């Protein structure tokens, strides 16, 4: 990490859930955190307030990862208010379950554009600053669905598997410059994303999960914060499961 400089992190999709918990975990380790939100500024402000109450530095930043102009604008604001982004957490995610045979093209596009293209757009915008600093941390929030198929989640699982591929190639491209790129793969975590899951589906996941319970956003956040930290410099291109053993 560049000496004497406050490390700046940007987390996308951070108005709630795993992204919000990640902001708080990063702020607790002393990072200045930009809380990226798309449709929910109140949620982002709540996260900011919690981070500040903990003694941390945080701002809320509007960012739609599907929109290049929005991505550029958000990075510009973070640069102006906090400094250049040294830690990027590509957490924004979208899913809409449905069987492939009847799946709408628009849903497919929305899923891939948010989960995969969005991470690429943010990463591409972040890299010049990281390359210049010869230091950076990129953590991509993939999913257990990237590693094992799920009926009804073809688009989601394809986009997250793509994100794992992006992670590994990037790790090779920039690993010689003090930059690490890793992915975390959460299993079933209690957030708004998993709310629509039926009781049967929950039961099925529970049976497949050796931990015998679902995960919390904080449990994913602490692994992300660890990968984003100065001491994880030799972890690069890794795909870290945080799933209670679901994919073991």
């Amino acid at each position, binding site marked *: 990490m560049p000496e004497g400089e406050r490390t700046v992190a940007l987390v996308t999709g951070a108005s709630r859930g795993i992204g919000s918990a990640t902001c708080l975990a990063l702020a607790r380790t002393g990072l200045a955190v930009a809380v990226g939100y798309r449709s929910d500024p109140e949620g982002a402000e709540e996260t900011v307030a919690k981070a500040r109450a903990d003694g941390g530095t945080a701002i809320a930043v509007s960012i739609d990862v599907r929109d290049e102009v929005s991505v550029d604008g958000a990075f510009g604001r973070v640069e102006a208010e906090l400094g250049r982004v040294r830690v990027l957490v590509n957490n924004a995610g979208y899913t809409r379950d449905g069987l492939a045979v009847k799946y709408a093209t628009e849903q497919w596009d929305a899923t891939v554009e948010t989960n995969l293209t969005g991470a690429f757009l943010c990463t591409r915008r972040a890299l010049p600053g990281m*390359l*210049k600093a010869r230091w950076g941390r990129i953590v991509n929030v993939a999913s257990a669905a990237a590693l094992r198929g799920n009926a009804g989640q073809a688009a989601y699982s394809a986009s997250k598997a793509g994100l794992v591929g992006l992670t590994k190639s990037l790790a090779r491209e*920039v690993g010689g410059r003090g930059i690490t790129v890793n992915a975390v793969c959460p299993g079933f975590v209690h957030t708004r994303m998993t709310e629509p899951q039926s009781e049967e589906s929950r039961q099925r996941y529970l049976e497949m999960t050796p931990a015998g319970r679902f995960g919390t956003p904080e449990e994913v956040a602490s692994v992300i914060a660890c990968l984003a930290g100065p001491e994880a410099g030799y972890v690069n291109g890794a795909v870290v499961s945080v799933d209670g053993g679901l994919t073991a």
Partner: protein
Amino acid sequence: MDMPELESKVCKILAENLSVPESQVTPKARFQEDLDADSLDLVEAVLALEEEFGVTIPEEEMEGVQTVGQAVQLVASKMGVGA
């Protein structure tokens, strides 16, 4: 800015970015063979040139650039500096 001035500025930035002595960064020097630059080194050098001169150099236009002289020409054309 005239061409000689631009050339010397570009060469200085390239030398810094590629960590080679300025004396080696001559118009004929080839990035890969003479300056030991890989493709990421080159992209980083281009990012530095973009920042310094406030220009944008798209990936397609970087492709044909093999020598320092070609890089100088590219920046010159973006800035409207003639020979």
